[in-house]
């Protein structure tokens, strides 16, 4: 309770609230423009956060993230085009509902579902993160290593593409992380005489290059939209009735979103589809899904927003980012000299709790901004993403340069932009790569610490938590292979 009050004190001042508001507003704009991902929005905001106090910088980025996740519903409902990947399932019923003459209802449902999802996940975040952090404090290096391996396996196996490409992506990312001086032994690896490589590659320019830079180039041919502004209102009493009759759907979708968000690499883009699928399975009228029913919109929007709270949990408790945007949040913290992990909540209670409160307040701002500003965002969605490409490239350069104030990082951005583009064109997922880059050094460090304490490798399996996590990692790895084999047998037998 004391921690929460510290967080409230950190956030409740005009400057921080204003910055949070601007972040949410900007995030909604980014989310409303198809072709822009939330990661790009965070990249744009990232350089601004460097010069701010840690709490203000984080508030800005959280605002962008929450606003961006919700902003995607506008074009999803009104044009059938998801503003962000986390709004794909929203189009399944949001757009048909608009075509059926109820655009205001679609938007109102999506907006309130987003709000409720964010609040529920925020509450779970506040309860669960400190508990898990306390649990993680009891970990030795074996457990930390096993946890990192589990996180890496999760991100490699839970992505939507082929398993082998997910694994390739994560191992390539880990390989990149070996560049520089070994964390314990001080031996130079793969530096090729470059002084700048001795400290290794900072993950932020890599992240910006892989995600933002490469995706910008992939969208060069995207056309702009021509939405029309229609009557977008919906009576509040009817909205309340719609929500009250979907209580179970709301809670189930929120929990699915939190669970998916906790898994590294699985974010809103998976949460919204999984939640939609589950809502359809549990529904008494599954045949109605896709025709414009409220349950579809509620399932998708609740889950994609609640996944953000879920993604914050491993970052706060273990120092493992739940997705790429959380990785950028982590980067922003690290630039301010703060290391997220099990000790973060105890060492920086005001900041840690401030993050929770900022998350909850961002939901309130998101509700206010979207309920009033939808006509404006519709106009903004007319802007072609490619018109903003030059501006965003400049922000990518600033964001990379400002990490260490050296041009070398901008070259890193450039090279990883090329690598990211190649990966996208080759259908190799990006999220596992970036998690490999971030978690590689911690994984290796814990591995070496374990061996230097006791060279017995069997300890990784015989220690209960470590063994359990490694077993789970194996299950994650084997499950898709077994599922594929069973599906093939079923196909052959039919």
């Amino acid at each position, binding site marked *: 309770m004391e921690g929460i009050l510290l967080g409230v004190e950190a956030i409740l001042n005009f400057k921080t609230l204003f910055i949070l508001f601007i972040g949410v507003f900007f995030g909604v704009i980014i989310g409303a423009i198809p072709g822009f991902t939330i990661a790009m929005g965070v990249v744009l905001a990232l*350089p*601004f956060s*460097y*010069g*701010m106090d840690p709490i203000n910088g984080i508030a800005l980025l959280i605002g962008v993230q929450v606003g961006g996740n919700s902003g995607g519903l506008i074009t999803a409902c009104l044009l059938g085009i998801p503003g962000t990947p986390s709004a794909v399932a929203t189009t399944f019923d949001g757009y048909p509902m608009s075509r059926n003459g109820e655009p205001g209802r679609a938007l109102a449902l999506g907006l309130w579902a987003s709000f409720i999802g964010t609040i529920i996940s925020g509450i779970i975040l506040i309860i669960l993160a400190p508990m898990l952090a306390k649990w993680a404090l009891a970990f030795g290096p074996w457990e930390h290593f096993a946890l990192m391996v589990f996180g890496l396996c999760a991100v490699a196996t839970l992505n939507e593409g*082929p398993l*082998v*490409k997910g*694994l*390739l992506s994560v*191992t*390539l990312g*880990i*390989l990149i992380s*070996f560049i520089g001086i*070994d964390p*314990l*032994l001080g*031996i*130079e*690896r*793969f530096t090729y005489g470059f002084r700048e490589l001795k400290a290794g590659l900072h993950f932020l320019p890599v992240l910006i290059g892989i995600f933002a830079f490469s995706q910008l*180039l992939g969208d*060069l*041919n995207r056309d702009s939209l021509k939405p029309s502004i229609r009557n977008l209102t919906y009576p509040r009493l009817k909205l309340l009735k719609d929500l009250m009759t979907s209580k179970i759907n709301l809670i189930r979708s929120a929990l699915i979103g939190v669970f998916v968000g906790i898994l590294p690499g699985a974010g809103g883009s998976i949460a919204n589809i999984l939640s939609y699928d589950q809502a359809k399975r549990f529904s008494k009228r599954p045949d109605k899904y896709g025709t414009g029913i409220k349950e579809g919109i509620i399932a998708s929007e609740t889950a994609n927003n609640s996944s953000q709270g879920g993604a914050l949990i491993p970052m706060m408790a273990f120092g493992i980012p739940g997705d790429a945007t959380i990785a950028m949040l982590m980067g922003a913290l690290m630039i301010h000299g703060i290391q997220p992990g099990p000790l973060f909540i105890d060492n920086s209670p005001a900041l840690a709790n401030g993050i929770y409160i900022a998350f909850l307040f961002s939901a309130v701002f998101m509700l206010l901004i979207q309920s009033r500003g939808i006509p404006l965002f519709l106009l903004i969605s007319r802007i072609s993403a*490619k*018109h903003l*490409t*030059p*501006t965003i*490239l*400049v922000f990518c*350069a*600033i964001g990379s*340069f*400002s990490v260490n*104030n050296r*041009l070398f990082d*901008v*070259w890193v951005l*450039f090279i990883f*932009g*090329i690598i990211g*583009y190649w990966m996208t*064109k*080759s259908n*190799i997922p990006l999220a596992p790569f970036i998690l490999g880059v971030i978690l590689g050094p911690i994984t*290796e460090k814990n*591995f*070496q610490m374990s*061996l*230097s304490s006791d*060279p017995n490798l069997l300890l990784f399996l015989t220690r209960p938590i470590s063994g359990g996590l490694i077993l789970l990692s194996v299950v994650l790895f084997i499950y898709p292979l077994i599922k594929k084999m069973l599906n093939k047998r079923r196909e052959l037998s039919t």
Partner: protein
Amino acid sequence: MKDMINSVFLICLMGFLFYQTTLIDAESRSGLDALLLPRMTIGIVALLSIILFIQSLIKLRQEEKIKANFSLAKWIKQNKEVFIVFISFGVYVLLLNQIGFIFATILLLFFLTGFIIKPGRNKKRWLMFSIYNVSFTLFIYYTFTVILKVILPK
């Protein structure tokens, strides 16, 4: 076909990196090996690349057609915009240290405005974009260096 090329490339790259590890003096008094995990990872990437190669070979045979009509010139033409943007960004990074953030950024924005947005001969649009490019650059420079105290290349 793409997967086959990528897997061959990765196998060769892993071979090269493994050779590089043999050149590193990784002896330590503690008995720990700084090259253990890198070599294991190189091995895993190589193995996965071989699996990918085999999978793509099987897929190619199942489809019973080899796409031998790949043309480098055609591929470059299809991705022309991407290459030009990459090259222009590379030139921008080179210029950042030579002429500073403001001039390099204005040049980049003008070039990309003409290339991506294509105002053509519309003087009004060019004027609008010119005002935007210059004022945006100056605004960003002022915001970062004066207000946020973030260093930018000079």
